[in-house]
């Protein structure tokens, strides 16, 4: 993975020097461990700040909507799928983009590692041969990378970018035998009361900061439904009913567009697993309409089309 950094820098330098793009979107080192920050390199002198490791979990497609300049963008599997969603929804033109595809090995769940450290403060994180070495004042610990991936990365089936102009590393082998929906099926088996309780407990800590919305690449509406006041669809309080309405509508709004990139869960300051909402919709869309978001730039999103043989057994 270290090789990626070098190749990203080389490509960015070349693109900027040849004036093929106005800006290169990538990551640079964050101020705290496990969090790299998005970085827009605008001149060849700045490209040496760009880097790549297992802490580049933020979805860069989030920064594309509505841009008018030419952009070089580093894209892992999920970023590239969100770029496709942006293309389908006319948020950006393909000619504007030069995509540096980064075949992904999964992003690290820094939160779980921090928990394992039980209060010791991590200062430095290094990756080597499938291990994560975390060190701080007077300690050094090593973790198996595979065991500490973000939950969505562990069940990811599109690690290689689906669109790209150039690769910055060799394509990786896709995971095949992954059960993406084990947790959804578990909830499906519950009674209505138990389901209600499950989601009630899930979102109980929510403080309605909307970080999940802001981190989400497909949330780009000029006025979000939570900010609409006439009519007001969802109250602004942390009353459980309002919180439920928010999470329900947010999830429904990304139905058929969500690529399960995990940006929402990563951004949540209180650790809510809101992918439990979106994954149900993802599962239904796959089962009923055979569609996966952001995989095919040619096919229309599922709620933007219909077929004569759609399942309609729910109708009287």
């Amino acid at each position, binding site marked *: 993975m270290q090789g990626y950094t070098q190749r990203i820098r080389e490509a960015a330098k070349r693109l900027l020097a040849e004036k093929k793009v106005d800006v290169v979107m990538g990551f640079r080192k964050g101020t705290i461990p496990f969090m790299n920050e998005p970085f827009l390199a605008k001149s060849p002198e700045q490209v040496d700040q760009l880097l790549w490791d297992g802490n580049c979990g933020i979805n860069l497609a989030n920064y594309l909507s509505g841009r008018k300049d030419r952009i070089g963008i580093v894209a892992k599997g999920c970023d590239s799928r969100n770029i496709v969603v942006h293309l389908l929804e006319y948020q950006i033109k393909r000619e504007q983009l030069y995509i540096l595809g980064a075949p992904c090995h999964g992003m690290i769940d820094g939160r779980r590692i921090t928990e394992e450290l039980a209060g010791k403060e991590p200062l430095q994180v290094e990756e080597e041969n499938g291990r994560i070495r975390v060190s701080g004042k007077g300690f050094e610990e090593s973790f198996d990378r595979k065991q500490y991936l973000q939950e969505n990365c562990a069940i990811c089936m599109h690690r290689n970018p689906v669109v790209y102009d150039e690769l910055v590393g060799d394509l990786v082998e896709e995971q095949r035998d992954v059960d993406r929906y084990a947790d959804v099926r578990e909830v499906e088996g519950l009674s209505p009361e138990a389901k*209600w309780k499950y989601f009630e407990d899930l979102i109980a800590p929510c403080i309605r900061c909307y970080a999940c919305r802001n981190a989400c690449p497909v949330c780009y509406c000029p006025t979000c439904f939570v900010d609409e006041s006439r009519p007001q669809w969802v109250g602004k309080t942390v009353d459980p*009913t309002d919180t439920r309405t928010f999470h329900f509508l947010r999830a429904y709004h990304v139905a058929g567009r969500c690529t399960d990139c995990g940006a929402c869960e990563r951004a949540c300051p209180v650790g809510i697993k809101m992918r439990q909402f979106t994954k149900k919709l993802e599962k239904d869309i796959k089962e009923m309409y055979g569609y996966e978001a952001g995989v095919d730039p040619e096919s229309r999103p599922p*709620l933007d089309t219909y077929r004569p043989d*759609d399942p309609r057994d729910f109708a*009287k």
Partner: protein
Amino acid sequence: MSQWEPKIVAFMCSWSSYPGADYAGLSRLAYPPNIRIIKVPCAGRINPKFILSALRQGADGVWISACHPGDCHYMEGNLYASRKFALMKNFLEHTGIEPGRVHFSWVSATEGHKFAQTAKEVVDSVKALGPARHMIKKEAEVA
């Protein structure tokens, strides 16, 4: 609670189901009075927010009715609506709203009988579930 009667919000397409209700009336067919009809230009106009909004404001059930597939005045609005609704219904039920609170039907302008029959089915199904309380804010407890 023996006096309780459900309130049901019904979103009806102005080209088929709404005239269907009219036809039921013209035919002097009886159907339960628990239904409050909201006329919409096309079932495709129904935003899933409407359904949630109805539940939040005290509806015990929601009924959406559209033209039969292939009969939409706007060619395809009902087909989009059916996809939206299929996902919405599954999702509501997945998150704990009882199956039987939200209904979807195809009723054309000449199907007065089907309208009356479906109205009865919808009301019976919601009645069996009792009042919907999940999406309604609890009153603040006063010490």
